[in-house]
């Protein structure tokens, strides 16, 4: 395709979408009349646009929409519950560590009961951290997610 045809390429989509300004429209029309290759390209593109316009997504029935809001609220509640649980669990672990270190009265059994969840949490933390670091290197979505 000749170089001067390149500038007309995106304009073809603009024209098919009815979004091209009058001046660009006239330039493109003139070019299409003179360039059989771009004209053929335009015809193919027109078919793709017409066929894509016909796509329809299966919209769920009314029952799904009737319970949609309840589903969203359930998620909000669950998230709130999890946040409360995690904050409470972390506070308990911190308290346990403090008792473990500072209180001589704590029996071996109490110390084991405190140590086991602490070690478990540390293992989970290290595992998640390692996975995140690994994924950050190979993940093709990470740069596209807008924070």
């Amino acid at each position, binding site marked *: 395709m000749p170089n001067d045809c390149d500038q007309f*390429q*995106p*304009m*073809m*989509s*603009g024209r098919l*979408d009815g*979004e091209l300004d009058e001046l660009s429209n006239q330039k493109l029309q003139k070019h299409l009349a003179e360039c059989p290759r771009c004209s*053929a390209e335009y*015809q*193919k*593109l*027109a*078919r*793709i*646009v*017409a*066929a*894509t*316009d*016909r*796509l*329809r*997504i*299966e*919209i*769920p029935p009314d029952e*799904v*929409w009737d319970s*949609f*809001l309840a*589903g*969203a609220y359930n*998620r*909000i509640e669950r*998230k709130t519950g999890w946040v409360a649980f995690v904050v409470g669990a972390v506070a308990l672990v911190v308290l346990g560590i403090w008792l473990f270190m500072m209180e001589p009265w704590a029996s071996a059994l109490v110390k084991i009961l405190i140590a086991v969840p602490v070690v478990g949490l540390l293992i989970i933390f290290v595992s998640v951290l390692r996975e995140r670091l690994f*994924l950050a290197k190979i*993940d093709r*979505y*990470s740069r*596209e*997610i*807008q*924070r």
Partner: protein
Amino acid sequence: MASDEAAILHQAIGGNPAAFESLVRTYQKKAYIVAYGFVGNREDAVDLAQESFARAFKALNRFDESLPFYPWLHRIIRNVCLNFLRKKRRHGEISLNDMVDKGYDPPDDETPDRTAELGELSKAISAAMFQLPHDQREILVLRHLQEMSYAEIATCLGIPQGTVMSRLHSARVNLRGLLEDVKVSSLGSRKEG
């Protein structure tokens, strides 16, 4: 932004559940369609749309009321869907349903041949769309399924209108390439009817 939506948003930010409910009702189908464009099946799309509203609810106090609501919601839906795809792809669990032209009402002057031809092409496009990069799939969904103008898409995605046109064009050129690979007959060089 319409002033009644601004008022509803203001109330929702202030913690009024009825106002938040009204926002959900207004945008739930739009959110579903965007999510479907990313994940390609109904069940996941409904879940992800709900999850997006749950996150939006949590983040509402950080929303800048001088900006339009939908582009902000769209970014949340996009992030939720991309996170989902990242996890799913890691586990190799993506299932896709075709988008279909069921329910499409052809114009009166369209010949049966052309209806059949475009029907075949739509079916092939619905399968090929999921092979496109997600930003191209997203813009096709906004244009063809949400029926947004270039200006609306530009606001929604935070890109200039010229980029909307070139990204849409790239998506269509890639689609054409994918369809030619599978030799879709209706992409022949016949003139427009």
